[in-house]
């Protein structure tokens, strides 16, 4: 071949025609990852199909859902997971609550992770004033009481799911940014980054193609742990009035509303808690498997 600029020095070689096994194909070969994917699928399906899965309305306060003294019912034949303090079916509420909690745990948490990673990577790689300014801004955000911001927003804005998602994204990126920053600044010192510079790689290429993949384990850890914390944080924010408002259910607010009753009516805390745990664990299983798959030195591990 004779491209004028191309180095036509080496005889063009025979290119091996071997397809790369896709990440997805390797993922589904792992039993643990499969379990994780299964749980996520069940939760998503439950959220989407919620109206058809149980015979109840999530917000209907049923007369037979409470004892005469006003106590909720434990799990029984007609209410599989029991009822809540207003006599509503807990299973139905958990299914509908999945919609809110998935948006928070995945979208809001994801956006926070994204912002945190971008800020951390940029600040860690560009030393000069950009990095300094970004990190000082991060420090400011970290030192600033997020709850206060939430309360003020609550008072100013119309409460809605998307606002609480935005607030969570807004306050949760900070920690990620700092951790990613620390790691990026040590990665930036590695020799292979020098090597990339000498071939003229642009900063964005170095950041996204060479530094980011090395941050994956950290991102996975923060991302999966973030699911639980954001889902619970949503409840706090909703309590302060900036999130979903009653009677809309979310896993976090089911727990939050009922946590003082955990002795009198443990099912009200246990089931939504288990749902959060399962979701976070599922993502962790997937994340762990991904981490192994994307880490070439771990190939060969079953």
């Amino acid at each position: 071949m004779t491209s004028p600029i191309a180095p036509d020095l080496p005889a063009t070689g025979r290119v091996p025609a071997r397809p790369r096994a896709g990440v997805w194909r390797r993922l589904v070969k792992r039993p643990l990852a499969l379990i994780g994917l299964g749980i996520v699928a069940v939760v998503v399906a439950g959220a989407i199909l919620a109206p058809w899965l149980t015979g109840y309305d999530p917000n209907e306060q049923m007369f037979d859902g409470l004892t005469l003294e006003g106590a909720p019912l434990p799990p029984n034949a007609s209410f599989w997971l029991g009822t809540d303090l207003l006599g509503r079916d807990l299973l139905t509420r958990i299914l509908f609550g999945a919609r809110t909690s998935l948006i928070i745990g995945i979208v809001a948490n994801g956006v926070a992770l994204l912002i945190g990673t971008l800020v951390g990577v940029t600040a860690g790689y560009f030393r000069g004033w950009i990095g300094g300014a970004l990190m000082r801004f991060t420090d400011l955000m970290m030192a600033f009481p997020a709850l206060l911001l939430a309360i003020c927003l609550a008072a100013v804005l119309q409460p809605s799911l998307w606002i609480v998602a935005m607030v969570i994204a807004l306050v949760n990126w900070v920690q990620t940014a700092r951790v990613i920053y620390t790691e990026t600044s040590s990665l930036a010192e590695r020799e292979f980054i020098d090597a990339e510079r000498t071939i003229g790689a642009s900063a964005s290429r170095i950041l996204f193609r060479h530094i980011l993949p090395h941050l994956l384990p950290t991102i996975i850890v923060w991302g999966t742990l973030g699911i639980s914390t954001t889902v619970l944080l949503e409840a706090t924010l909703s309590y302060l009035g900036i999130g979903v408002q009653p009677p809309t259910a979310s896993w976090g607010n089911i727990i939050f509303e009922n946590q003082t009753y955990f002795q009198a009516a443990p099912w009200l805390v246990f089931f939504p808690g288990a749902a959060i745990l399962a979701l976070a664990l599922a993502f962790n299983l997937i994340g762990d498997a991904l981490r192994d798959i994307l880490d070439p030195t771990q190939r060969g591990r079953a």
Partner: protein
Amino acid sequence: MSKGAGNKRTGVFAPAVSVTAGPVLEVSGLTVSVRGEDGEREVVSNLSLTLARGETLCIAGESGSGKSMTALAIMQLLPQPAARIESGTIRLRARDQDDTDRGHIDLAGLDERRMRRIRGDRIAMIFQEPMTSLNPVLSIGRQLVESIEAHTGLSRAEARRRAIEALKAVRIPEAESRLKQFPHELSGGMRQRVMIAMALALKPDVLIADEPTTALDVTVQGEVLELLRDLQREHGTSVILITHDMGVVAEMADRVVIMRHGRMVEEGTAADIFARPQADYTRELLAAVPRIGTGVGRQKSAEQKSVEAEMPGSVAVVNDLHVHFDLRGGFFGQVNRRVHAVEGISFSIAPHETLALVGESGCGKSTTAKALAGLVPYHGDIVIGGRNLAGLGRDQRKAVRRDVQMIFQDPYASLDPRMRVGDLVAEPLLIHGIASKEERSQLVAGLFERVGLSADQMELYPHEFSGGQRQRICIARALALRPKLIIADESVSALDVSVQARVLDLLKELQREFGIAYLFISHDMAVVENISDRVAVMYLGQIVEMGTRDQVFSNPRHPYTKRLIEAVPVPDPAKRRPRFARLDQEIPSPTRKIGEQPPKLALKDLGNGHLVAVS
């Protein structure tokens, strides 16, 4: 090393100088396989070898032939989870106290706890990658002392003394204060010497040295080899020496094993192998060995000269280059000392020219290279293709950078471990927008073939290659852009001689075809003689002698140059030297207090551009 240091050892091991019958180590039928993306692959097949007490066995052979894997298998340190021993036994002769009645221990089946007692104490190993083998957060003193403490009952102070001795033995300057330093504060060669000191400190029965001197300059290499011999003489240590350098093989080996494709192709005494090689591969290998003094003179063809005439001026001009590193110390961490890594050097490289930069470890060769590649801040002028690097904008600098490519000293550290090597080699093309996707992969496949790798390996990751193979990947990457200047920092030192010869030929060929200039950094004087047009000898950050190859090699004028040339081992067992010359003066250090300037050497022209420092 002080004599009799071994007697102080409180362990039960009393050095028996007489060679008792029977091998110390016996490997039979060893097969090692690694699991890759597509199934298992044997990298060592049915290998058998024996090692007698006090013997030096050299393993040489093609890069990637499984030499390191064999060594790691003996240590039970194969990379996890990919590699495993498929079959075979590795038998180490037992000492009295070992709880076995058969007189030997099979390492292949040993549990980790008992293996631990053997590692370091009975079998020590020096690893191939010096940059990454030391723990970055522990001082080298700590790392030395702990291994001594782990296997002897010595007190901390005693162990420390022993550690200092070991450092002195590998000729680390200011050994005592070095104990407090951390690995990243040492040059590549120094780190390698620390590794050697660590292995030697315990005087093991068997020492496995995987390319122990690759990163060292010839003078230090000589000392290290001498040290190995001392150890052998005094303690009857058996040594497995893995090396590409046939000169080292000739100097050291009692017996030689030649490997290729995971199999042993030939075994014999050193004299036999060199004199009467049986296998074709061995013959090929020996033929490829560069020999000093026999380097074919490179007559410049008329054609080349005309190209030069067409392109007047130099590819790169370096004028009064200084690179300093500030060291912080004291309680408040203020700058109190400064490493004068490069102290005012000037040279120029013309198109079609190869300038070799030689000098001992730590003299500033890599630093010079990095300054040229724009990776460290410097003072002075660097002019590339007529443009001074200082005062260039970003885009211009990117354009200039395309013309200068660098092959790093440590191939592993300079490859992104998470990228496939095919993508890594294609990356420069991609960045500079050369060729379409399919064309690119064809080009890369072609590059792979040119450096002696198969196109199939494009799909693998850096860690799946042997040291030499990685080096070739780096070379392929640097060639991809067809730059005007390639800086090659110890680029062929990790290659076996046959591949080395092929790569050197390739480099020369490219130079002929495209007029690429090289800044070739090496301490292998034979290779330097083979490839270079001009040679610059560096010492403590300054150039002490510079001239054409012939001027420097046939008429070395500076004492340091002379010593370098003398120290080169000759690849002929018959010409083996009884002892390497020891340096008697302290090894100088480029580190000085703030404000203290190193003396500036003036260069005198002896005629025809042969410059020599006069002090």
